[in-house]
């Protein structure tokens, strides 16, 4: 009798854990797309873009425009929004960032510029779209049960998108010349330059890819949290930072693993403690990694 009760409680615990793992997989998918975008751009340009969170916000709001105002399908809206965000990201690099690089502005000034940009963009979105909550008009689709894990069809699509994108990024980095050029710039920018790598074109491409992934991540994040405000991206940014730093900053594969780790740990912890403290858990991981393995837990040597 007593044994039965305990067994039931334990099986209950396990199913709670697995439920958390299910949620974690979805969060990890969103996070992986966003983290790889940030870390790719860092690898090539060697500075952190603090306006990256706003790229997510812009993607989410563009998709809202396409789906709610122009009545397009949500996935088509997502694709259009991601392409447009890629363009905006490219433009921002050309118009705002490049003038500073040409004058060889110090890193500190560059970081101040990206944070000024983040303030400008977030308030810009808020000025245009208003501060209130928005929501896509989509059906989450059929409920799919895999053991105790519960997914909606939409969430499974998100996981699928993440897997496809990560594979594409892997193939790009590993087998194309442009991917090799990106990795070489990440390794040693000066050596890459004197070896004839077209720095400008590779940098442009890095911002395009980074913007595309950010825009797309913004849309799937907005779908996942159901309702969003112009603070969507800036509130998510430091969770992206946590994933990127856990994996070793500038390392795309590290970012994927970091996203998986942060996604799983935060969502599983939310099964046991108040979910308002999810971000605190992500922060704790960030602090522990910075204290004990600042180069990232999945790395042994220098950067990529």
């Amino acid at each position, binding site marked *: 009798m007593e044994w039965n009760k305990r067994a039931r409680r334990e099986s209950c615990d396990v199913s709670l854990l697995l439920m958390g793992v299910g949620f974690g997989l979805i969060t990890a998918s969103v996070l992986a797309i966003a983290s790889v975008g940030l870390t790719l751009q860092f690898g090539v340009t060697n500075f952190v873009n603090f306006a990256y969170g706003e790229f997510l916000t812009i993607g989410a709001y563009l998709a809202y425009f396409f789906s709610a105002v122009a009545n397009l399908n949500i996935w088509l809206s997502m694709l259009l929004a991601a392409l447009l965000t890629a363009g905006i990201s490219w433009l921002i690099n050309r118009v705002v960032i490049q003038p500073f690089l040409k004058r060889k502005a110090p890193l500190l000034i560059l970081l101040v*510029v990206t944070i*000024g940009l983040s*303030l400008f963009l977030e308030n810009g979105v808020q000025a245009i779209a208003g501060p209130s909550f928005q929501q896509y008009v989509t059906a989450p689709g059929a409920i799919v049960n895999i053991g105790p894990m519960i997914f909606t069809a939409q969430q499974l699509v998100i996981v699928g998108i993440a897997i496809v994108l990560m594979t594409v990024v892997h193939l790009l980095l590993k087998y194309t010349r442009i991917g090799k050029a990106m990795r070489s710039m990440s390794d040693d920018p000066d050596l890459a330059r004197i070896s004839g790598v077209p720095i400008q074109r590779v940098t442009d491409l890095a911002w395009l890819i980074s913007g595309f992934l950010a825009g797309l991540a913004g849309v799937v994040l907005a779908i996942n949290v159901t309702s969003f405000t112009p603070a969507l991206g800036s509130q998510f940014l*430091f969770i992206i930072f946590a994933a990127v*730093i856990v994996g070793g900053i500038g390392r795309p594969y590290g970012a994927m693993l970091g996203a998986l780790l942060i996604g799983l740990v935060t969502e599983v912890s939310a099964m046991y403690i108040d979910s308002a403290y999810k971000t605190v858990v992500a*922060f704790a991981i960030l602090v522990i990694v910075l204290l004990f393995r600042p180069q990232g837990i999945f790395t042994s040597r220098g950067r990529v």
Partner: protein
Amino acid sequence: MSSLVFYLLTVAIFFCIYSIYGWGLNLQFGLTGILNFTYITFVAIGAYFAGVAALQPGNGGIGGQYILGWHLPFPIPPIIGGIAAAILALLVGYVGLKRLRSDYLAIVTVSVGQIVWTLIGNITPLFNGWDGLAGVPQPFNSIFQLDFNHYQWIFLVICILFAVLGFWIIERLTHSPFGRVLRAIREDEDVAAALGKNVFRYKMMAFVIGSIYAGVGGALTIAYIGAFNPSGFTTMETFIIWAAMLVGGSGNNRGMILGAFIVPVLFNEGTRFLPSTPGNPLLAVSIRGMAIGLLLILAARYRPQGILPERKTIFRLDGLQQGGEVGGDRVVPQ
């Protein structure tokens, strides 16, 4: 008292407080090159601890849930606020300043800002949660028993005293051997380390002292307004101070005074009168945020040294000192 005098007094008080904020940030960024992207969190911690040190014990009911409640007389709460901010700075600095590139500390500060904000809002027994503290006693007014209008004069005098003391200390620090090491670290960390300076220690000291300025400034703010809640420390507030520093002249404490006048006072007060639209209640706030962001970018682009640039010492063979605005980044022993 006319409303104009009242308004000018308020502006003067905030001008003093923003100068104090600015000197702290200037010590961190302008002098040492530390990126603190959540300076306002240190202000908030100072304000909260000063607040609960000055308040009567909470009754535990609505509006009365907070720690301490020591009901201490005035000069003590700002000291407690300063200490609280210093302790937070020690913790943050320990994680973010050690053997890492400068962007890591920036990332840590951004994260700490979010976390402290979430924790203070959600843990009501600390500082009364999202509602925040209210009814913090005005310094010395139990003696003077003045109404709010006349009390403004007393508070202005208190603020001026704090500002003068703050300016004196920061100028002494800036021009001391300590300040010289900080400038050397800003220009080239590796060189400073090669000369035997413990870079981490110096950076930590600059970070902590700068945060004490934030904490004391926060303590004055809560003593003046009498209330404080999480909506008072948003990212935008941090960057108003940043913009003031960049516009006024980073590395120059006098420039900081100018910046504290131009940005928070003129700029913030000026955009306050933007018309409000019924469809978008926060339109004026959003436009102000865009303007602050744009100002940061433009200041960094066209005049990163600010209106009053830092005066750099130039090496001369005859041993005489010559101050002036120079293009080079040389820092030489005097």
